[in-house]
Every structure is written in structure tokens, then in C-alpha cells.
């Protein structure tokens, strides 16, 4: 919850300028401007558009992650769910589904169900979210290896192809999808009772439950949302990639959590906004792009990526002490 209760415009403007989402946005702008001086092609419209398109995948995975983290949990199964989505979709090509919409919906239903199972474990069996979702990830990975083996599967789904490649009004469809999802998510998070319940649960689950918040069903919903958005990200990544394979989702676990935290959402729950996760996701792909520019070997790239995330978090993502 940002300081939206301020009275007058001046106070509000200052509150926005000093807010964490805005700070993250400012970092992105500074890095983009700096990088375009150093490297010629970096600041080109086409390149920046490509960065945002890549950011859309992280942004979608981080959508559910933001909900889960604000509600006081964490979802370590998102990477595996992205892979489930990207692999099971090519396997589901039906003859009587010419647009591909039915298979996409079926896959999203599947990933949502996986999320709900996570929620059941957390809410009803009282398994710690970390253990529950990590176990789920391990389970799914095993299943995927059995189903898909080591080979990549090619998607022949028109809708998925369109999502990954089309550019209506000059903007990649993936970015449009991200914009639409973001609008819905920000509304649900900050303008509905459901959103308010999630913040309450994250800040103090006991007080929330004694105030009548249906904690169990809300937990199911939150993990369900995370499954859904990870599934959606899987569909998009499949469309952009053309092929799905085991491990395609792996980069998105750390990326989704880092985007959430870089955006100013408290990893302890109860405070934050998706408005910060959006620039957080763009910042992450920007860092990846910069590392690619440096032209280091894969090992060094990974080391650089990890150190840069840590550095950025030290700079801006540290938690303030809570009483």
C-alpha cells in the first residue's frame, strides 16, 4: 500500500516520487541512458522494445509471485510450472481446435490447478510455503522428464504462434498481453476487497483471521493465481521460442522473486505493489542484456548476473526493520 491517503496533490506527487516503484523505474532509465552511450545499438527503439518483450515473461511469472509474497508466502514452483505449460501445450494439439484457444485454456486450467494444490498444502496441511512449492517443483520436474524426455517439442498452435510473433499496431503481442494483465492485477490488488485481504494476511495472518478474513480460501486463490500467471508466461515463452523443452522455465524462479523484491515488495509480506514489480522485471532483462554486451563466457555471465542482483538489492531492496 503506497501512501494513497494523502490529502493534496503536492504531498501525493512527493509520495510517488519517493516511492520504491518509482525509484526502480528511475534506475531502469539511468541504466538505459548510460548503456546507450556505451553501446551504440542499445538505445535503439527496436532493442528496447525487445527488452520489454523479454521483460513481459518475467513480469507475468512475477505477477503471481507478487500476490503470493504480499500474502506472506513464496512460490518456488513457478519455474517448473512455466516448463509444464511450455511442454504440455504442444502435446495438446487437437484437430477440432483450429485457433488453438482450447488447448491454451486447457493448459492454463492445468497450471492453475497445480497452484491450487500448492495452496491446499499451505492452507490445509500447513506445510511451509517454501517446502510445499519446492516439493511441487521437484515433483513436476520428474514428471516432465518422464513425459518429454530430453527432446524439445515444437508447438503448432496458431494462437501461441501469434502471441510470440505478431505485432499488432507495431507492438509485440506479448507486451500487449503484459499490459492487459498488469491493468487487471493492479486493480485487483489495490481496488478490491480481495486485494486488501491479501495485504492483511501478509502483515498479520492471525489478526486477519480474527477479523473475519477467509484465510484458507484466499490462500488457495493466491497460489492459484500464481499457477495461472506462470502458465501464461509458459505459453508466451513457447510462442517466442517456437519449442518447449525441459528447463525452459528455469531462469524465471530467481528472476520472478528478484523482480518482486527489486520493486519494493517486502519479502516478509504485507507491503508492496505490482507497480514496482513491472520496472523490476524490465531492470532484470536490462541487466541480462548488459552482461551479454560484455561478451563474457556463460560461467562468468551467471556470476555477474548473481552479483548484480545482490548489489542492486543491497542498494535498494533492503527491508526496514519492523517492530
Amino acid at each position, binding site marked *: *500500500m503506497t*501512501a*494513497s*491517503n*494523502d490529502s493534496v496533490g503536492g504531498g501525493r506527487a512527493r509520495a510517488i516520487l519517493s516511492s520504491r516503484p518509482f525509484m526502480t523505474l528511475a534506475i531502469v532509465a539511468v541504466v538505459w541512458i548510460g548503456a546507450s552511450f556505451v553501446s551504440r545499438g542499445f538505445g535503439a527503439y527496436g532493442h528496447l522494445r525487445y527488452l520489454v518483450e523479454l521483460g513481459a515473461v518475467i513480469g507475468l511469472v512475477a505477477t503471481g509471485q507478487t500476490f503470493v509474497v504480499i500474502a506472506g508466502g513464496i512460490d518456488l514452483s513457478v519455474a517448473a510450472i512455466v516448463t509444464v505449460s511450455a511442454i504440455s501445450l504442444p502435446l495438446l494439439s487437437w484437430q477440432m481446435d483450429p485457433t488453438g484457444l482450447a488447448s491454451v485454456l486447457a493448459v492454463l486450467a492445468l497450471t492453475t490447478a497445480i497452484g491450487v494444490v500448492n495452496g491446499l498444502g499451505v492452507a490445509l496441511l500447513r506445510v511451509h510455503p517454501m517446502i510445499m512449492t519446492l516439493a511441487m517443483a521437484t515433483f513436476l520436474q520428474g514428471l516432465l522428464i518422464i513425459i518429454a524426455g530430453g527432446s524439445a517439442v515444437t508447438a503448432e498452435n496458431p494462437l501461441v504462434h501469434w502471441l510470440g510473433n505478431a505485432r499488432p499496431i507495431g507492438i509485440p503481442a506479448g507486451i500487449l498481453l503484459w499490459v492487459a494483465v498488469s491493468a487487471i492485477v493492479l*486493480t*485487483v490488488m489495490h*481496488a*478490491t*476487497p*480481495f486485494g*486488501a*485481504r491479501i*495485504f*492483511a494476511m501478509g*502483515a*498479520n495472518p*492471525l*489478526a*486477519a*483471521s*480474527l*477479523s*473475519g*478474513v*477467509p484465510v484458507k480460501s484466499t490462500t488457495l486463490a493466491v497460489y492459484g493465481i500464481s499457477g495461472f500467471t506462470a502458465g501464461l508466461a509458459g505459453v508466451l515463452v513457447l510462442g517466442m521460442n517456437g519449442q518447449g523443452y525441459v528447463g525452459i522455465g528455469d531462469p524465471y524462479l530467481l528472476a520472478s522473486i528478484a523482480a518482486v523484491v527489486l520493486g519494493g515488495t517486502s519479502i516478509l509480506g*504485507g*507491503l508492496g505493489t505490482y507497480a514496482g514489480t513491472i520496472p523490476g522485471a524490465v531492470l532484470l532483462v536490462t541487466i541480462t542484456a548488459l552482461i551479454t554486451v560484455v561478451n563474457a563466457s556463460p560461467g562468468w555471465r551467471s556470476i555477474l548476473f548473481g552479483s548484480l542482483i545482490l548489489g542492486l538489492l543491497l542498494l535498494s531492496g533492503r527491508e526496514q526493520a*519492523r*517492530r
Partner: protein
Amino acid sequence: MTTTAPLLAARGVSKAFFGNPVLRDVSISLQPGRVHALLGENGAGKSTLINLLSGALRPDGGIIEVDGRAVARMTPALARQAGIAVVQQELSLTASLSIAENIGLGAYPRRFGLVDYQELAARAKAACELVGLNEKLSTPVGQLSLGRRQMVEIAKALYRKPRVLILDEPTSSLSATETRILTDLLERLRSEGTAILYISHRLNEVMALCLHVTVLKDGTCTADRALEGTDASGLVRLMVGRDPGDLFPRWQAPPSPANAISVRGLSAGLMHGVDLDIRTGEVLGIGGLVGQGQEDLLLGLYGAIPARTTSAAVNGAAGLPAGVPKANALGLAYVPADRKREGLHLIHPILTNMMLPAFARLPALKLRSRKAERERGKGLAAQLGIKGDLGRPAQALSGGNQQKVALAKWMPHDPLVLLLNDPTRGVDVETKREIYLMLRGFAAAGKAVVLLSSDTPELVHLCDRVAVVREGRIVTTLERGALSEEAIVSAAMGAEKQKVAA
């Protein structure tokens, strides 16, 4: 009395936070062998003064003296060396550590560089015996009731063999028996020459125990005098700055009551086999020693913990509510005792806290209206006298105001039954009076109010009936005519055989 140098003293100390003066030119001196009372409403500056005396804060002006010598830079470490021990109002125990470990924490006896657990146990046991703690020393503190934890906190201070003992509202969660043990103990420490600073909102305790009193009002000292020759209402006048009137509103016979809740054979948590009728238009008190199951009774009725009954009716519906949302729908509301842990979302704005029950009941995806919320919040704040910007986090409020927020959030739902768990604990006199007025107001409006309280005078003067709980059962229900502190205490302690309820 001033022949000996004070063990600990503050001379003309001032302190401001962010430019707001909290203490202005306050002096206090703690003499050996004297119990000194520190009185004042919430926010008067008592806690700040304690923090200055114990070195947790540095004064902006003025000096702190130990044994008559000025200390340039008082620190917590120096305070410990000087034998100053503070029992904080906010319990500072670690729930997962045992009683003995908590008591010795920070001052474990060592042997060959390792913790000497035998020595620790022996010394912790001695401290526990002083306060009448007979639980096993290896019990994790988290398993103890609030009152017992308070005793551990006191034992922790005694373990350090203090010369100066500062107690910040030590009895706010203690039962009558525990309070008596503490009183005897303080009396003994005093006779051994310990200087004691005693902070309490319970004036009768202060009158009985203390010899000297310092009263703070809005950060200045309004009295520093012997207690002899003053009475309770005189003290309240000094604290509030005006005539206290009567703390409790006049009692009126409730209008023809009907049963709001009726349970037979209720078992929940520690409680078993409870028959209870809660009537509309009355304030029903729940009394007894701390931790006899009273809280489980409320939580069971509220659907927050599993409960079984042979028969039950709640506002016309059969059976107890299966969960909190169901209970809210039936018109029940619950205000918890521990407002920081159970009642409020401290990091969230006051306004959000007030709106939470509404958020819990509205359709999940209905669009919120910030404007309507602000309006409603302002109305609630005006109704309950909550001052200041509602956009601040709830942790910025004083204890009394936090309690008002915890109450306020239920008001828009117009609950038929209010279940209150010790609503006046750690609340200043003025807020207490406001809360009492409100509770009688609810009853007069035909609601049922259930008041669980550890404050016996409150039960006697405010309630229409009091159910006394001992060992998980209601041992007696005292009607208005039979209500007295003696009757409640003796029933709570089992001193008297079942008194027949009319």
C-alpha cells in the same frame, strides 16, 4: 528521607522526538528502600523517562545520576553494571527458549567458556521461587499464559539482583493471586533496601504499595510528593488535569432481556461442559484467575477454535458458528487481548485497519471506493475519539488509541454480540472511562456485551452478571446484587463452595 543519596535520579531531563517534546524538565529520584509510583496517562512520557533512566535513550538536556554522581553517558550496559533492572510492559521474552534460558539470557553463567546449565538452573530456580513460578524450568515460555510470562519477566529482572527495580505496568496481565505475590515480593525487596519504581494504571495498588509518587502529564511533572494524604481521585486529577468524576458509568437495569447466545455442554480448548446464556442488553463479565480457559470460551463461541456443544443457539441460528466469517455473519465480533499480535495490522494505515472486517465481508472483486472509506474512517475516528491522520500506520498510535481502533473496526457492522478480551489492559484512565461508557451504551442499545477481564473492579462496577471461570468450568454466575470483589476472587480461587446463582 533525603539523608541517603538516591540510587538513581534524573535531574531536569528533557527529551524530544522529531521536534515534539515528550519530556520537559522532569526530575525524579529513587531512594533505597522506597517504592516510588510513576503515574500518568498513556503518552504522558512515562516510558520515555524509564528509557532515559535505563540508558536506552540519551536525554537532550538534564543529567542522570547514579549514587549521587552524574553519569555523562548512560548506556544500557552501564545501567546493568549499576544494578538497574527494568521489567518492560511489552514483554521481551523469546517464546521458543525455556523459562531458565529466558531468565538468564545475556548473563548466562559460564564454565570453561561454555554455558553452565546447572548453575543457570540453580540461579533461575531461586529467582522463580521469589515470584512463585512453579512451572518446570525447561518449559518453553511460548507455552505459558500471558500472566505467567509476566512473572518470568519479573524473575528475569530479579535474577540480576538489582539495586534499582523499575516495573512498567507489571500487574496489567496478572491475576489477583499473582498480584498479591508480587506485592509481597516488592514489600520484601523494599525492606532489603532496593529502590523500586512502580508504574501502574491501577490506583488502588499504587495506594497500597507506594510511599512516594511522581505524576507526569503531557511530559511535565505535575506532582512529586509523598502519597500520604492523597486519595485516588486526587491522583486522577493530577494525571488528567481535571476532576475525574466517576470512572464507571451509572448502572441501569437492562431492559427485558432475551437470549442472544445460549450454549449447553460447550467444550473448547481448556473449557469443558459449559452452560451459558448471554442475554441482549446486558454486559456479562467473565472473571477468574488468568489462564483458566476464559479466552478459549470466547474463541470457541467465535468459531476461531474448534468447539463442541450438546446444543447451541446463536442469534436464532442453531449450533455454534463453524468459522470466524460465519460468526461475523451471525452478528458476532471479537476484540482480542493482545492488540499488537491479534488485533491490529501494525504496519498498515489506521484506516485500512478500520476497514478490514468490511473487506472480509464484501464481495471479493467489488471495486473499492477510497473516498467512501475515508469518509467512514473519519466518522469512526470522530465517534471513538481517535486523533490524528488515519493514513499513518497503526504502530504510531499509543496503546489506548490502538485499542480504540481495534474496537472501531467492528462498529460499521453493528454487531449483536461483542466479545471483548480484556479491552482495558494497559489503557489509561481516560480511555478506560470512554470504553466503559461505550460498552454500557452498546448494552443499552440492546446488544449483548461479553467482557472478559483481569481487572476485578471493572467486573464489579460495569457488569450485570459475572461468570467466574476456574479450571475450565464456570464455577458460579454472580448476579448484580451479589457482585463484589471478594465474591469474585473467592469464587475464582475456589475458596467458597458453589454459590447458587439466582
